[in-house]
Each structure stands twice: as C-alpha cells, then as structure tokens.
C-alpha cells in the first residue's frame, strides 16, 4: 500500500517551463456537441467548428467557435468505449471492412458521451445576406488518412458521404438555419484530414463558395505511433513539410521549448518532487507528465552535481501511472527514488528518439 504525498514542485533540470501555452492548432475535442459549419467572410464561405460547450483539451469550453485548423475531433475507442463490429448484411459494405471487423463510429446523438457528437450546420447569421432561403452544399472532395482507411458520413444505413469509391465522396444539402446530426465512421484508427468544399445555392445557382479541411483522430486509447504521427496530427499540411516548424528540434513558438520536448513531456512540462509513503516508511520520489508507447526511450537519470555531464541511469521504481484521456499516450508517472544519496544529487528525465 503506497500513498503519494506531493511536496515540492518545479525542479528545472528539464529545460521546460509552463508558458500558459495552449497547444498548437488542432486541440483535441473529445466529447459533447459541435457542428462543422460555414460562415461568410469577405464574400467567401469559411468553415469552422461551431461549439456547443463541448470539451476541448480536457475542459468544457464556452468559446462559441473555433477555426477549422483550431481543433481535431478525437475519438478514443478504448476498453470503456470499444469500436462496434461491422454487421454482416450487405447494406453495411460501405464501411469498407469485413463483417465482424471493428468500425469506429462517432454517435449522432451524444451516446456514448465519451465521444465527439457532430453535425453540419448553416446557422451563422453572416449567411443572411446570401438569402434567407438558400441551401448550402457540403461536398467531401478529398481525404488523407491511414492507408486503406475509409470514411463514411451516414445515419444508420442512409449514406451521405463515403470514400470507398473515390472523390468527390458525396454531398449534403443543408438549408439556411439548418442543423443536422450524423454518424461519422472510420474504418481504421489514425489521423484523417477531411477536405470539404462549400457552396451557397440560391435557386440552383452558386452564389458563394469556399473550402476547408477538418481533422479527426481515431485511436484505440494508445497514443501516437511515433514522432511523425504526432507531427502529422498537430501541424497543418504546410507546416508538416517545413522542418524549421515541425521538425523535432524546431522551436516554432520561440519559447525555448522544442517540438521534441512537447512531444515527450506535453505542452506544460511538470516535474514534481513527492514523498511516497509505503508501509510506514517515507521515500523520495518524482512525478512527471510524459508520453508512452510512442517510439521514444524515456529514462530517469542521476548526477551528483549539475556542472558534470556525467549522468547515469537512476535507480527508480515506477509506483503509479495515471492516463490523460484527452491526450492518449500521455501519463502522469510517479517514480520512487531508491538512491540513498538523493539529498545531494540531481535528477532528470531524458527522452530519446530512435535514429530515423
């Protein structure tokens, strides 16, 4: 029986600090309701996430909207919310997997509550100048995702968009003021970018157009396969191509924190000094936020003094882990320090990427 007693915080051996940084674009949206919506800006239709107090980055968020590149819908299909098996009848062939294989379906009605619940809408007041009785066409024109991945927008067996036969992969018409909910189903875990074209239709004529990309991340509860998967998920397609922005050693925010550090230890790296009570004895320990199962080697190291580069692996025992739902793969980890000389020593956590 152990008990973690938090004590002193903010050891600065790891060159990370909390900057109040709220992450790059594509913050994780994990539960409750949003719509992908359009508004009119400078005569063009622009896509955005219309927020209905959904959970973003682990917190209920009251911001009315987010830009398209501001969020990703994160579906965590873990043991508590497993994927559904595809039913056998042929009407379900559109899912693109064999009968009995898993499908990753976001609900159309908020059940289960631990998944994003999404619709499409054309409710924004900025659309009024285009006419009160217009219709808005959302067309899926492209998608990137895991190899072999299939996306479907549907309600039960009524299919509105499906990528099995290529692109354009289907359209939905939403009348002005309209707001419709759908099942968003993916055939494989991974990160998907859905590219939509928008058209405002007035009596059959197109009176405004636009396009935007919306990102979805589907996971079975694990984190990113490796750094490249993380990079692919938190940066825009243009940024992914630019090593000075999305490379592991880049510091795109000029805050002294590299992408690699963020990948390994999160946006607000924290290193806490704790005491661990076990069977009446008190042991020193460290508690930190770090990523698991992502191709990295993370180790605790010890040095008798800071000026030396002579770091050695510390003698520690992992006592406790706490996963972070909105950032799969990230964990709070508590280690007991078994060294007797810790009073005069220094510790750090070191993350190493495997050679490419």
């Amino acid at each position, binding site marked *: 029986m152990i008990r973690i007693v938090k004590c002193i915080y903010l050891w600065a051996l790891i060159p990370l600090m909390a900057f109040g940084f709220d992450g790059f674009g594509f913050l994780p949206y994990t539960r409750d309701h949003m719509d992908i919506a359009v508004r009119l800006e400078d005569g063009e239709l622009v896509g955005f996430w219309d927020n209905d*107090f959904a959970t973003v980055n682990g917190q209920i968020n009251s911001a009315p909207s987010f830009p398209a590149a501001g969020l990703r819908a994160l579906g965590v299909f873990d043991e508590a919310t497993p994927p559904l098996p595809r039913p056998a009848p042929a009407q379900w062939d559109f899912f693109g997997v064999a009968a009995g294989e898993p499908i990753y379906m976001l609900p159309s*009605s*908020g059940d289960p509550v631990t998944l994003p619940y999404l619709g499409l809408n054309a*409710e924004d007041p900025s659309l009024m100048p285009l006419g009160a009785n217009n219709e808005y066409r959302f067309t899926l024109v492209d998608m990137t995702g895991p190899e072999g991945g299939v996306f479907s927008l549907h*309600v039960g067996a009524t299919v509105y968009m499906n990528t099995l036969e290529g692109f354009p992969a289907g359209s939905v018409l939403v009348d002005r003021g309209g*707001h*419709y*909910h759908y*099942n968003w189903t993916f055939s494989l875990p991974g990160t998907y970018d859905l590219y939509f074209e928008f058209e405002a239709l007035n009596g059959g004529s197109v009176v405004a157009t636009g396009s935007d990309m919306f990102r979805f991340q589907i996971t079975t509860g694990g984190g990113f396969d490796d750094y490249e998967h993380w990079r692919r998920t938190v940066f825009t397609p243009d940024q992914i191509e630019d090593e000075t922005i999305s490379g592991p050693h880049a510091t795109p925010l000029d805050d002294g924190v590299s992408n690699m550090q963020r990948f390994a230890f999160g946006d607000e790296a924290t290193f806490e000094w704790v005491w661990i009570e076990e069977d009446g004895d008190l042991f020193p320990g460290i508690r930190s936020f770090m990523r698991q199962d992502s191709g990295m080697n993370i180790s605790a190291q010890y040095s008798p003094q800071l000026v030396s580069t002579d770091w050695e692996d510390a003698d520690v025992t992992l006592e406790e882990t706490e996963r972070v739902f909105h950032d799969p793969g990230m964990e709070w980890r508590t280690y007991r320090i078994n060294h007797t000389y810790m009073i005069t020593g220094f510790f750090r956590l070191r993350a190493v990427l495997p050679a490419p």
Partner: protein
Amino acid sequence: MNKITTKWLAALLVSTVGFQTTPSAAQNIELNGGSGDIFFLYNSSAGVWNTVFRVKTSTDATGLTNPFNASSTPSTWDGILGNQVPTEAGANGDHIYETLTVNLNVTQTLSVDGTDFFFADANGHFTNNVPTADLGLRIRLREDQVAMGDSLGNTNFNQFANFTFAINTELSTFNGVALEDTSAHVSLFANDGLDGTAALFNSATTNLEGTFNTVWTHTHRNWGFSEYGEYSVVLDVTGVGGEHGDSTHQATVGFNVIPEPSTFALVLVGLGFGGFIRKKRLQNLG
C-alpha cells in the same frame, strides 16, 4: 369495418380540434416544428431546479415571451453555467414556461422492444432531416463557485456524479387518464447507428429510467407514442451523487400526437370514397 373507422376518425377530429383551438397563453410554449430543447439546471444555493426551453435557429414555437435571465430572475443564481440569455423574447436562447407542449404530426412507426411507436424523427436518427418537432434534452449541471462568492477560488465543478431521466407512468396521462391505466405507451429511444434502436426508457417494458453518465450533455432522441392522442408526460429527473447528493425534480411535457396532414387527407379521401360506394350500394338496393 366502417363503424370502427368512423369512430377512429371521430377521435382524430376531437384531438385535432382540441389542439387547434387551444390558445397560446403567455409562457405556454408550443413547439410546432424544428428543434428546441428542454433544459435542466440546478440552483444549489436554493436547492431548486430550473427547467427552461432552449430556442435555436430552427425552432418553430409560440409562447416565447419570457427570456430566462440568470441575473434578473429571482429563482436563478450567479453560479449558473451553460445558459444563453436571448437578446429579446423569442430570440435564440433560454425561455421560461408554465407549460411546454410539443405538437407532433407523425405517421411513421418503428418497433422498439416489441411495441410499435409513432415517432418524431429526431435530428441524427433514422430518416433524418424530417421537419417534425424535435424536442432535445440539454443538461448543464455544473456551477461556477467563484461567481457564487467562493473566496478560495474554487472553479467550476459538477453538481452531481450523473443524471437519470425517468418516465413517471403514475402521473403521466393519455387523453386525461393515467398512462398506466391505458394501453398507450411512451418511449424515448435512439438509433444505435446500425439502424437498431436503443431505448432510454420505454413504458411498454420495465425499463422506465435511463442514466446519463454525465451531467453536461445535449442530445436528441426519438419520442415515441403507441397511439395518437394527447399525452402529458411527467418526467422524474434526478441528479445523483456528487457534490450535492441526490436531488429529484419533476418536469411535465405535453405531446399532441396526430397524423401528418397528408395522411389525414388520405384518410378523409378514403372515407369519402367508402361513403360514395355505400351510397351507390344503397341506391342499387333501393
């Protein structure tokens, strides 16, 4: 056969006339089309619930005369979270009501746990996009401690651990008779995504209560009714456990369930044709 059909038509006419002649008094909200939500909030300071009606862009309703404003409504409180104050009466946002009635024109049926229900196709379910009145549920059971004067700086937290939503068959009525004493049934059910149904509750079964494993959600389900007529559905809503322990509140929603006008017209045409044939027969006999 004609006798039975005529009785059924008479019942329909009574129901329809009753619905059409009922005036919309102040604070008596009627949802006639589009989407709106019944919205549950809990005032922990006073230990009372607020049930209001959320108007959205697509809402087609009457009786939207009293906006719900947390800062000026005596029964509300500063710790409220998740409400939307309308810019004016009838605008998008939350409204107070004395009675809430949903007028449903429905024809389609679906079997839920072995009972056929007429149902209003809720947003995101089955045929979708059908413009019937769609009453959603909105649950915002969190509060802002700082706004309530907590000098320790505690922030927002859940008022309860979860939330249950049950139909009270003893107090609910069908055409003025206790629901449990009639053959009519009410269900609230979802599409499970694979064209199956999942009932939150179904009075035709022993499943009378559904649990939301959250206190902060917004959802649309299908309201199902086994017979045409007037329903007064009494709902027992309960915040369970957590910061404030268990607290139950009763909310009542009226549903006028009638056939869609096109179906109704077809019935009239059919009866007229039947009458014509009967008249011809009588003429032939005469």
